[in-house]
């Protein structure tokens, strides 16, 4: 996910750079108004937490392990503006000090790994909380789903960037299906881990969970019984449904997936080439219809992502005062 230089062209790098810089500027102002002079030590130490948490692996299946990305988690715990700033700092330092992710890729790496998961994840979280009970379980389930979906959301963002600025002729369909598909699976781990982590924080210090600041102490302690295994299986089902629906859109021609599969294997048979998927710039073999549909999907996804991110931002701004009051009463009589 820490994309190196070269996969997206310079124009996309510059554009996403400007977008990210603007978004971070807004987030910084928001963070300052909520945290005041606590912003540097709090954001700094929690950024260290996110960085450290990303380094450690958790079991996924049969001994294989995964890693937390943490964007949605940061937003739910700290608020979307602070969460966005914190994860951005992590990503930027990783690029500069650890050579993790390209220097020109910072624009879209920050956008995809910090801004979209933090704001988009928070937007989804808020929506989900509206339909879930106002108690600990509601918060935990909302976290799980929002964090889980924030990962494929991030992959969708990358795919849309690919649509505009791919540096190589791989069709949008292919990238979209591959990226989002894989990240739906990764998202399951992210969702489960984030949910359990927020649950743990809620149990000990509910006042430290930004996304639960509206709960009373009693509500924060209230849990409905949800089996963890059931939750994981439920999550997998959601992911599968999502994947099936999405893949139908992205490859409307039923033979499309088959073709992509054979082409990505060793294409040593000359006759395959006549059926081969076209390069991005020229949909000669696939009909005009498919191109329209692909772009339509991209358009819809773009709108969805923007909507969710916008929601996240809107809720940040609206609840600014509540957060400040909460922050002031958190520290035991300090100042």
């Amino acid at each position, binding site marked *: 996910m820490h994309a190196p230089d070269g996969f997206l062209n310079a124009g996309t790098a510059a554009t996403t750079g400007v977008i990210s810089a603007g978004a971070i500027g807004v987030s910084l102002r928001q963070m300052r108004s909520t945290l005041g002079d606590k912003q540097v*030590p709090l954001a*700094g130490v929690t950024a260290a937490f996110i960085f450290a948490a990303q380094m450690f692996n958790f079991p996924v299946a049969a001994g294989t392990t995964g890693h937390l990305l943490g964007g949605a988690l940061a937003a739910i715990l700290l608020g979307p503006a602070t969460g966005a700033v914190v994860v951005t700092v992590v990503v930027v330092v990783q690029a500069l000090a650890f050579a993790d992710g390209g220097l020109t890729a910072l624009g879209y790496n920050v956008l995809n790994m910090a801004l979209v998961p933090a704001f988009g994840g928070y937007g989804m979280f808020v929506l989900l909380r509206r339909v879930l009970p106002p108690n600990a379980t509601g918060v935990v389930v909302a976290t799980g789903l929002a964090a889980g979906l924030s990962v494929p959301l991030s992959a969708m963002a990358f795919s849309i960037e690919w649509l505009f600025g791919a540096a190589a002729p791989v069709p949008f369909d292919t990238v979209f299906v591959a990226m989002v598909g894989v990240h739906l699976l990764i998202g399951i781990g992210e969702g489960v881990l984030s949910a359990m982590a927020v649950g743990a924080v809620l149990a000990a210090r509910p006042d430290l969970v930004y996304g639960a600041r509206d709960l009373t102490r009693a509500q924060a302690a209230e849990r409905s019984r949800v089996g963890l295994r059931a939750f994981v299986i439920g999550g997998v089902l959601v992911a599968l449904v999502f994947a099936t629906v999405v893949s139908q859109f992205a490859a409307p021609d039923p033979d499309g997936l088959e073709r992509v599969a054979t082409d990505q294997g060793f294409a040593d048979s000359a006759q395959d080439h006549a059926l081969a998927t076209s390069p991005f710039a020229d949909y000669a073999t696939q009909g005009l219809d498919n191109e329209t549909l692909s772009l339509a999907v991209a358009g819809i996804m773009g709108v969805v992502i923007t909507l969710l991110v916008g929601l996240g931002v809107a809720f940040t701004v609206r609840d600014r005062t509540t957060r400040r009051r909460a922050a002031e*009463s*958190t520290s*035991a*009589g*300090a*100042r």
Partner: protein
Amino acid sequence: MPTSDAATGQRARSHATRPPDARLTTPAIDVRGLRFHYPDGHEALRGIDLQVEAGERVALLGANGAGKTTLALHLNGINVPDEGSVRIGDLLVEESTFAEVRRRVGLVFQDPDDQLFMPTVGEDVAFGPANLGLRGADLDARVAEALAAVDASQLADRTPHHLSGGERRRAALATVLAMRPDVLVLDEPTSGLDPAGHRELVEVLRSLPMTQVVITHDLPFALELCERAVIIGEGRVAADRSTATALADGQLLARHRLALPYGFDPGHVAPPETA
């Protein structure tokens, strides 16, 4: 080395701080009727009265949760009293005087990692005086002075994370000394130190001339450093007498969950030289 030449060491270190004003009739610290409760409702301090003269060294003893740290945080305005007042010298501690109070009262926290937040020790020591407005050569001189006072000049370019426990303690102390405080408040300064680190710290503290308030569980340390002991119990001052007397009172100690280390007999220890 601090131990070898006590007299010159003393003189050398007094550069690091202003000697306390001898003519003071106003106490260095004057706490009256202090009451304080936490946001969750717990009443931590229930009427504290405490006066400390300039140059005195007072050990603040008591069980965990008795309110010692809470009290200490009032001395530089981090905690604000519900009732009562805190005066540092002639200055009442309140919002408008925080900046000056924080210059006069140096608080050394329990965990040195909470106080060493800059990339290098030198920058940490510079943080305080820089906030006071020092720059350039003046700032460098102040940093050098503070580091020398704790025998840590060689640590200036080191990362805090790579220091030993004792080095971290002394570096944290230096960050506070750089403000040239009149009063030094230390929270559990010897906890976690190995014996050599412990000894180094005690030597450094004994060489510093300013008023000291030391929160500690380490009773021999309290006896060695502080001539006076104040025991806090359940948010109030439970006892206020000479350290030797306090430590000789077994029942008093037991009431406040204090106990002498094995083999330690306060009656058979030479009282510390008045520094």
